[in-house]
């Protein structure tokens, strides 16, 4: 009896040690599934469970670690994935500060990395380090352009800005101010609030004192509802704009009727079913929403999970190319995968159509964003 259990133990140990087998392709994933960015990280984490388990006949292992929205943990996890799990590619993390910190680690290990965070600084400019880094979410500047465009067309002359007092709000203000200035749109107020604030009355009163034609609220998820609800309560009558950070069902639930008529830019996946049939993105986006909703309930897809899905699509296109040159687990394979990712052309993902180049590691054009209006408690495509 004892002998049997011993040999069983030995077999188990051998099995555990053998998991990162040379033949398998290991994808290391870092997501912020807990902490302040959990609303981004959870759908991303859920999405990896829906991805194919083999590409080009090669078995894929997804090794998912949570960084708790903490930069240090993100770096630690990345190092762990690289040294212990010997991953061939890294996907993550959910937010910009974590992704920026991971860039150095990935580049040092000469391993390709696909970020799911928004800031352009993650992949731009493509220098010695960033040549290893790619990302799937649209740049803030693309989304800002869409908002400014819509405001100009709607005859808005003055706009007030209320944003998160963190990298998200700051980044949005910078991009938005640049484009607004170029298009002669006056920003009359610039206010900040914190994600966990229980009141934004002060900011809202200051904004209303400047009598702007429109207000842009730059927040992510349900916290973005608070300024809008307060503005409505205090009787602000102008136009409301939100950013693509709010594109999930919980925002609609919390904001309720106060968000009727709000405009926001978003990835096409948010309104996949309303896209014209001629749009190639429609099929890919609907495929993702169908898979996600089958596993997690109707109406529960968010655009954040779709960024993870898009990273998966990039891999499914790049891995077969790289496999022709080298075997997974080798230095050569990592380099080949990087080259393959950079060489991707006309790949349709759920958020747009990707055309990578040596200068552009995002590869989106204006097809990667649509303007959406909130109508009857749902998203409505308007252009």
């Amino acid at each position, binding site marked *: 009896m004892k002998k049997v259990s011993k040999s069983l133990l030995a077999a188990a140990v051998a099995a555990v040690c053998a998991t990162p087998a040379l033949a398998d392709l290991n994808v290391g994933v870092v997501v912020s599934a807990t902490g*302040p960015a959990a609303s981004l990280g959870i759908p991303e984490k859920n999405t990896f469970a829906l991805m194919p388990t083999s590409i080009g006949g090669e078995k894929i292992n997804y090794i998912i670690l949570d960084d708790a929205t903490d930069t240090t943990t993100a770096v630690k996890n990345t190092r762990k994935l690289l040294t212990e799990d010997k991953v061939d590619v890294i996907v993550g993390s959910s937010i910009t500060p974590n992704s920026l910190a991971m860039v150095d680690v990935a580049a040092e290990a000469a391993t390709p990395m696909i970020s799911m965070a928004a800031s352009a600084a993650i992949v731009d400019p493509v220098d010695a380090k960033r040549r290893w880094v790619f990302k799937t979410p649209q740049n803030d500047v693309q989304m800002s352009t869409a908002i400014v465009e819509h405001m100009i067309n709607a005859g808005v002359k003055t706009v007030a800005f209320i944003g998160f007092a963190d990298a998200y709000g700051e980044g949005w203000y910078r991009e938005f101010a640049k484009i607004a200035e170029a298009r002669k749109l006056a920003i009359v107020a610039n206010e900040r609030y914190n994600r966990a604030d229980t*009141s934004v009355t002060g*900011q809202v009163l200051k904004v209303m004192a400047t009598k702007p034609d429109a207000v842009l609220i730059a927040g992510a998820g*349900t916290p973005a509802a608070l300024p809008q609800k307060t503005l409505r309560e205090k009787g602000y009558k102008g136009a409301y704009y939100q950013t693509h950070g709010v594109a999930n069902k919980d925002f609609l639930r919390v904001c309720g009727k106060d968000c009727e008529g709000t405009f926001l830019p978003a990835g096409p996946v948010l309104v996949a079913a309303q896209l014209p049939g001629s749009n190639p993105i429609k099929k890919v986006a609907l495929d993702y929403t169908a898979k996600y909703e089958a596993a997690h309930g109707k109406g529960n897809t968010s655009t954040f999970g779709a960024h993870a899905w898009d990273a998966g699509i990039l891999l499914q296109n790049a891995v077969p190319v790289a496999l022709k040159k080298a075997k997974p687990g080798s230095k050569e394979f990592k380099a080949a995968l990087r080259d393959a990712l950079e060489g991707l052309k006309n790949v349709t993902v759920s958020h747009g159509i990707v055309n990578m180049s040596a200068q552009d590691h995002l590869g989106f054009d204006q097809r990667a964003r649509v303007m959406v209006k909130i109508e009857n408690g749902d998203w409505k495509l308007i252009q």
Partner: protein
Amino acid sequence: MDLQIALLLGQDGVVNGAIYALLALALVLVFAVTRVIFIPQGEFVAYGALTLVSLQAGHAPGTLWLMLVLGAAVAAIDGPAAWRQGRRRLAGLLGRQLLYPFVIAALVLGAAPRDWPVLLQVALALVIVVPLGPQLYRLIYQPVAEASVLVLLIVSVALHLALVGLGLLFFGAEGSRTPAFSEASFEVGGLTVSGQSLWVIGASALLIVALYVFFEKSLYGKALRATAINRAGARLMGISTTLAGKLTFLLAAAIGALSGILIAPITTIYYDTGFLVGLKGFVGAIVGGLASYPVAAAGALLVGLLESFSSFWASAFKEVIVFTLIIPVLVWRSLTTRYVEEEE
């Protein structure tokens, strides 16, 4: 800035300040009686509000399972001692820790509280969340009740992190709101006052008066005060410090959960909202030197007003301004009060 804006900001500050004041009172109370700096105070705010949200959405809240599990743990630990002390003791323990949670669970699962009137839902949320206070005291703090303030603080930090993690598991990452208790709004001198903000201020004032009466008139209140003034002396007089601790945590949990339920219609509550709200109550409590109830309440009101006005003038630096308040207060306190070495 004209008078109208100043009034609106003042009103906002007072409403937030009222909540901070309640939390400050709870923090002072817990510290005075048990020497615990109760960092998880804020978690009860989030648990109270989000439990109500779950009940209204027709889900069984995660806090219900937490209460069941903690109840079973307390029963298992205290069972043998109660068994030796006689049948009445044991029956009381099992009734409180096993039967009560099961009755509540049956009520939540069987009676569809979704369709109940709001005030009944509030009561149900309270009877789910409030027992967590004494249960956590029994399991976490009672075994180390005689440890130094520093050890108790470290335990508090650990408990806070654990409860925030459980909050994420129970309620998810996104926030929620509850419908207002009253949709009414009143016009007072050109100023619109919402019914809900009157609820907040009224309930806070009522609770403060109730606490005053409790401490001045009732035997249990006097026992708590005696324990706060001198633990050893109180014990010599036959006051159980364990009972005092449990009672304190019961009050702290009730105040926290009620605060959360009061502000849930005004603002969005997240699983981790409680920490920041509790921290601001803590600043208020520090103003009162963690000892004086009226000064702590006044300090908390000051924090609310400061927060409201600084969000108007310099919104990006609001938190910096609020938390910097603690530095001059500490300097002033350390200059004016004599430092007393803590008795070991």
